[in-house]
């Protein structure tokens, strides 16, 4: 099997399990984002893929070969560190050429490749500059070029854009994705920013507490979250309690809702409804009754906060469909079964 495969990969630091039984298959040429809150084990997992940490359990395969015990320098990968780790004593060109020099590549070929890579990262003519004199975005690009100099099989980036300001970060996300598609290189990026993950990834891997909670395409992660953690972590959502009566009819916040079914045998569950899928109507006629408590007009979107059965429900609408409600007004909430996801409790 080609691509990258993680089988039951586990890492323990003493009694603490930082990564727990991770299974993941990354086909050649895909872009994967490891996404999760701080401390969930993303960096640890990436360091094991790079060989900088050895797993305490499980195995890692790259291109069909078991690389679990192969030392880092024989793994044929490129990595961009969170701190970038550019060599301060080398120029931009020498930094990029480092992996070629280590392998004894002739000087003229090194120079040709450096020029090629500098053109690729839109910094032509920067070879003789000192890395200390570059801006944040330029340093970022140099680190990427250095990691790609030998055209590795696998490209790893640990929170590569976190040091950049918001505007530059968005631009770099698009650039990185386009670069990856042009080179067709298998890429794994660690991030804690879900927008970043949604922008770049073919597959988003959501982690929490050292475990993978869901691995799927960005749209699927958003539309069909596997559990309430994923639903809550990716974008905004309303998590509403669902109860089923003896006949199996489901009610949300005390109101029967047609078309929603709990798994057979379950009496209780959670319903994840995205704010843009919540419809506000007149009260009654089978709608969930609630009271508007707050309205936030963000210009591009209007958020209406509704209190219903002790739970806060947020509805988002575009200015075109501005709901005709005011604070204190009684409203009805309608849920569309097609866009609501039933989750285990």
């Amino acid at each position, binding site marked *: 099997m080609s691509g990258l495969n993680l089988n039951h990969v586990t890492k323990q630091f003493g009694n603490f399990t930082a990564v727990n039984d991770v299974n993941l298959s990354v086909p050649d040429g895909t872009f994967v984002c490891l996404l999760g809150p701080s401390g969930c084990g993303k960096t640890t997992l990436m360091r094991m893929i*790079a*060989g*900088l940490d050895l797993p305490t359990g499980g195995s890692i395969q790259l291109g069909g070969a078991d690389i679990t015990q192969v*030392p*880092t*320098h024989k*793994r044929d*990968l*490129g*990595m961009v*560190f969170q*701190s970038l*780790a550019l*060599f*301060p*004593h*080398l120029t931009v060109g020498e930094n990029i050429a*480092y*992996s070629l020099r*280590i*392998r004894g590549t002739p000087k003229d070929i090194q120079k040709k490749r450096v020029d090629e890579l500098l053109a690729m990262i839109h910094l032509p003519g920067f070879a003789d500059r000192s890395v200390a004199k570059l801006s944040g975005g330029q340093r970022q690009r140099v680190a990427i070029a*250095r*990691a790609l*100099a*030998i055209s590795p099989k696998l490209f*790893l980036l640990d929170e590569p854009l976190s040091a950049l300001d918001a505007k530059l970060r968005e631009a770099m996300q698009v650039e990185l994705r386009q670069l990856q598609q042009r080179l067709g290189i298998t890429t794994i990026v660690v991030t804690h920013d879900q927008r970043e993950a949604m922008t770049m990834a073919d597959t988003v891997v959501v982690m929490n507490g050292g475990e993978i909670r869901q691995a799927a395409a960005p749209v699927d992660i958003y539309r069909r979250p596997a559990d309430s953690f994923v639903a809550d972590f990716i974008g905004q959502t309303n998590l509403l309690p669902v109860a089923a009566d003896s006949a199996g009819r489901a009610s949300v916040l005390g109101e029967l809702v047609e078309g929603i079914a709990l798994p057979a045998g379950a009496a209780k569950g959670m319903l994840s409804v995205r704010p843009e899928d919540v419809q506000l109507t007149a009260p009654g006629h089978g709608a969930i009754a609630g009271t508007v408590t707050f309205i936030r007009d963000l210009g591009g979107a209007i958020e209406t906060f509704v209190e219903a059965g002790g739970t806060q429900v947020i509805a988002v609408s575009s200015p075109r469909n501005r709901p005709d409600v005011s604070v204190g007004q009684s409203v009805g909430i309608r849920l569309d079964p097609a866009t609501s996801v039933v989750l285990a409790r």
Partner: protein
Amino acid sequence: MRREPPQRLADYGPLFFPAGMLIVFFVVPFATMIAVSVFQREQGGFYTPAFVFDNYARFLSLFFGKVLGFSLFLAIAVAAACVVIGIPFTYLLSRSPRKIQIVWLVALLSILSLSEVMIGFAWSTLFSRTAGITNLFVWLGLMAQAQALTPSFGAVMTAMTYQAFPYTVLVLYPALVRLDPTLTEAARTLGASPVKAFFTVVVPALRNTILATLIMVFIFALGSYLLPQLLGRPQHWTLSVLITDQAIYQSNMPFAAAMAVFLVLVSLALVGLALYAGQQRQAK
């Protein structure tokens, strides 16, 4: 806080103390030494003020030239040995658990509390035939017969390196601790083995620190006058030994002073050369 150029004499106040110390403990003794170096020696007595260069002239002989050469060679060798052993040692130390680091640093600091005399006698015992380490080698079957390892050049080198090693580690340690550990990890992901990463990243990134350490140990070793006498043969005696000999046993202060001045000038020149070379490579 605003910084203004000093206007009144009192504004220079903070400088008085260091300036005073510098004058009392450096400028005055050094000036005295230069003065004495051109004085006339009185046979069997002290010296009389004069302005003669006899002492320097006497120094310009093959014998003293050889001694000076050996002194510089020994100091450079000790500095090189300290740095070659010290960098990997300190690198590994800075990457080891906190507890181990503390134990080693305390042990190294306690070496600093030993005087040169104690270090000298300890090593001469260790290198002796009757009670030395060769007895251990015989017991282990590595050697047929116990033998004396002193006096010898190796014994002088070992003891002087031992004495200067704690200083080496203490100078290198902060720089190595501050060195971003991801630099070597980055080098490894780029295809360098750990050893290659050490030589292509750690050592070059620390170039200035290494140069400073070399100069410090060089000067430190240049002043050593007990260990060469205790552990070496007469041909291993350094200029510092001869200066001590002239000043204390021969009561020839002017000649001792002349040699000391010469030694200071030569070592300053060498240090300047090293710094210049370092800057040239940096500017490259």
